[in-house]
């Protein structure tokens, strides 16, 4: 794999609602130990959670940058209130790269380079070209996108960088309603941040007993972990250079190590898969979207 330009391992924004202390410990360990090149920080799911991170943000950013990591500030995926708009405007005025996850971000970041997050629909060349014209320097492709579409959008385009999530539960939807609150018989306005009770989200089962979805506040995620290890090489060949690990409540430093070894050609995907299994417990692996199948499917590549 070393024939290609260097592959970058990124850590996507933390989607779950962890305490400030847990977040700080997590990111400081990433800074010190993880073979990760880029870290995305910031609340993507719910603006009511924001204050939790504010107190440790500066320290975490400093430590990550001191460790030589690129820091990108992620923004909210569903923006409705003026306060939420102002929050994007605030980060847009700073000197860090910003990931827009709502078209509002694209508008507010006009005139400066920005990252297009996976919550903005870039399914084709037309959408890509328009955003590149607006200053996008990196596009994180939607999780639903199959390999052949990724190859068309990312392939042979040297104007921007392309990123794909290769580990962790995949985001499926965002809403105004809080399902975590509903599961606790509350409404969003009176949620008491019950999403904080589940560090890895709340499992929703079908009525016949299959684990199917993960509830994370207003967001719905897959139950299984997306695992694209065997596909890393073909993704690189398709023009993807950035590979996103989405934080889960498990040893992410070890996960990053496994992906790094596969990217560097020091470990075969099969062996990495077996090692990953030991880290993730019972949660199934999925890769359906990339293979053009139902997202919850698993294809042995």
């Amino acid at each position: 794999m070393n024939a290609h330009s260097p592959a970058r391992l990124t850590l996507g924004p933390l989607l779950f609602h962890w305490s400030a202390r847990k977040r700080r410990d997590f990111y400081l360990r990433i800074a010190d130990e993880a073979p990760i090149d880029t870290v995305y920080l910031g609340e993507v799911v719910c603006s009511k959670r924001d204050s939790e991170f504010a107190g440790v943000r500066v320290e975490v950013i400093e430590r990550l940058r001191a460790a030589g990591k690129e820091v990108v500030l992620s923004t909210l995926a569903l923006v409705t209130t003026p306060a939420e708009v102002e929050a994007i405007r605030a980060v847009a005025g700073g000197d860090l790269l910003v990931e827009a996850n709502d078209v509002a971000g694209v508008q507010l970041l006009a005139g400066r380079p920005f990252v297009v997050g996976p919550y903005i629909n870039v399914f084709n060349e037309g959408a890509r070209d328009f955003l590149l014209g607006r200053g996008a320097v990196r596009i994180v492709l939607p999780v639903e996108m199959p390999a052949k579409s990724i190859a068309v959008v990312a392939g042979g385009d040297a104007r921007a960088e392309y990123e794909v999530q290769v580990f962790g539960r995949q985001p499926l939807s965002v809403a105004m309603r809080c399902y975590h609150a509903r599961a606790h018989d509350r409404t969003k306005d009176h949620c008491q941040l019950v999403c904080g009770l589940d560090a890895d989200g709340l499992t929703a089962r079908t009525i016949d007993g299959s684990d199917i979805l993960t509830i994370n506040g207003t967001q719905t995620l897959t139950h299984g972990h997306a695992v694209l290890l065997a596909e890393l090489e073909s993704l690189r060949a398709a023009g993807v250079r950035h590979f996103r690990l989405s934080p889960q409540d498990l040893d992410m430093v070890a996960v990053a190590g496994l992906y790094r070894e596969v990217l560097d050609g020091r470990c075969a995907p099969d062996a990495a898969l077996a090692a990953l299994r030991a880290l993730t417990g019972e949660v199934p692996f999925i890769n359906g979207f990339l293979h053009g199948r139902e997202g919850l499917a698993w294809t042995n590549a």
Partner: protein
Amino acid sequence: MSPRYLELVCPAGTPAALHAAVDAGADTVYCGFRDCTNARNYPGLNFDADELREGIAYAHGRGCHVLVAVNTFPPAGNQAPWHRAIDTAADAGADAVILADLGVLDYATRRHPGLRRHLSVQASAANAPSIAFYRDHFGVKRVVLPRVLSVEEVAELVAATGIETEVFAFGSVGPMSEGRCFLSSYLTGLSPTSEGACAPASHVSYVEQDGRMLSRLGGTTLNCFGRGEPAAYPTPCKGRYVTHGRASYLFEEPIGLNAIKILPELKAAGVTALKIEGRQRSRAYVTQVVGDFRKALDALARGTTPPASGLKGETEGGRETFGAYHRGWR
């Protein structure tokens, strides 16, 4: 004729439904082509180019406008059908196209600058900067607002952007941010965003079992209804799921949106048009729903009290809600 209170925008899944909508008092009808270029790509539904031309002639002959939805997201490498759909709509004399994808918007803006462009709910523009973005770059004249906003939020957006807005007045309650929901493709492999069908019929099945009815999407059991229990659409967001050992409608119950009683609130918020959802519904539904809304709007335009309306039977689960318009919904 009394001045228009709010423009009534009505669904037409078929030419017969278009006729029904126009005859029942629609100000505007929206429809789509018989392919994946629109978000109601179900078998047997929608228009070909000739049917669209005939439909436009029928509507225009009665002072009614026709909008064409080309509101899905083309997959990479296959944008041509979406471009053709816009060309065809323009040729047929459509009054506007309803679009969502950035590339499709860009194409329509460059190729058909004179063709009016509306932003589809599928673009999920729920805040002022997003709306400004579509207005500034693509000359979008009207935004169909996501079904996730309260009346107060709608009013703020209208005030902040000065753009025409169209809001959902009747139909499904979509709890997720539309155009960005991958739940259906997660279970079926077919993408609503690019193939235009949420819970495609090809992947839906019903099983009768001991007087109960199980609904399944792909290989996943979504719901189970006891005898006589009202049924929900077989979409993932209307399924029953178990959390904390208890089965519930975690996302949304089988219930339909009906804003007929809060039309003055929507008018006061500065809304331009009301959208009746349901291109997948039949012309009987169109006739009844459009007829009731027409009567209500005419009464309000005259300054009188709208007559009683009985649309509960038409809604999902036979129950009605104001949805996100009133804050308690969240």
